[in-house]
């Protein structure tokens, strides 16, 4: 199992995501340079958090045109497993790989907060390793632009298709996301984006451990194929 973590100018959580992925048994993880048209044969792609291109113009708007994104889009179209975290989620939305868009938090400010996420589905390639009976994950958020938005009919469709995997626990929605959505997949279920940072929840010493299950799930899904 080999994870690839994309690195844009302005990416900040690249090493964190790589090191989190490396905690999965038997996993390798490499960094993928934004300027290369090359995914180095990885089995899954992570588009990590940070401020690609300074978040200038509009979050994720510039990074989606980076050369490596051509390959990421191709990989996704062919059913490859792609995870977008925070800025990665924003980029995947801008790239059209995920539905909806991320808008400025209703509170306008950057917020760091440890939040509880309700697991809507634990039978997907991103959540299958969530232990049976565990319905909630403790994972931090840190962003200024994390309010998930899609038009009402699209939200209905997302829910009907089971594309919403994670929601902020009741009363904990930190950013005004519609229907408390914290993470959604594309229709095929192979691309997943979320605002919370699972890579910052992989070690009890530095936080919680609940984020690791996402990486483990991805590895299991890839090895099942």
């Amino acid at each position, binding site marked *: 199992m080999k994870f690839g973590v994309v690195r844009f100018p302005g990416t900040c959580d690249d090493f964190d995501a790589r090191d989190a992925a490396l905690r999965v048994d038997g996993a390798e993880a490499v960094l993928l340079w934004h300027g290369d048209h090359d995914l180095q044969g990885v089995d899954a792609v992570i588009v990590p958090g940070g401020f690609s291109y300074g978040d200038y*113009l*509009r979050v994720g708007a510039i990074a989606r045109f980076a050369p490596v994104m051509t390959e990421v889009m191709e990989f996704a179209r062919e059913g490859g497993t792609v995870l977008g975290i925070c800025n990665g989620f924003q980029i995947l939305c801008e790239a059209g790989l995920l539905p909806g868009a991320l808008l400025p938090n209703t*509170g306008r400010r950057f917020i760091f907060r440890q939040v509880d996420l309700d697991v809507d589905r634990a039978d997907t390639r991103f959540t299958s390793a969530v232990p049976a009976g565990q319905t909630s994950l403790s994972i931090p958020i840190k962003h200024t632009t994390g*309010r998930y*938005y*899609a038009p009402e009919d699209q939200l209905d469709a997302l829910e009907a298709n089971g594309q919403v995997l994670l929601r902020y626990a009741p009363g904990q929605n930190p950013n005004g996301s519609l229907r408390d959505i914290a993470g959604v997949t594309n229709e095929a279920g192979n691309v997943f984006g979320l605002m919370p940072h699972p890579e910052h929840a992989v070690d009890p010493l530095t936080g919680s451990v609940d984020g690791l299950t996402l990486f483990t799930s991805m590895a299991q899904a890839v090895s099942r194929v």
Partner: protein
Amino acid sequence: MKARVLIRPKAGILDPQGVAVEQALPALGFTGVSEVRVGRMVELEIADESQLDQLCQKLLANTLIEDYEIVSVEGAVAP
């Protein structure tokens, strides 16, 4: 040719910045101000004017959440 593009949150989408401006008004002694919306303005030089609309749709605005308007295109041939 010089172009100016205005981008604003689509109607119906909450604009927290606009709300914040409205909330700050009374303390500063302003009354009778409403419907504040905060958007972006991008000014640029573009070689091929016919590409401007494309540029707006692809890059400058996200049309799911934003409307854009090309308000001034200096040096352009009149339509």
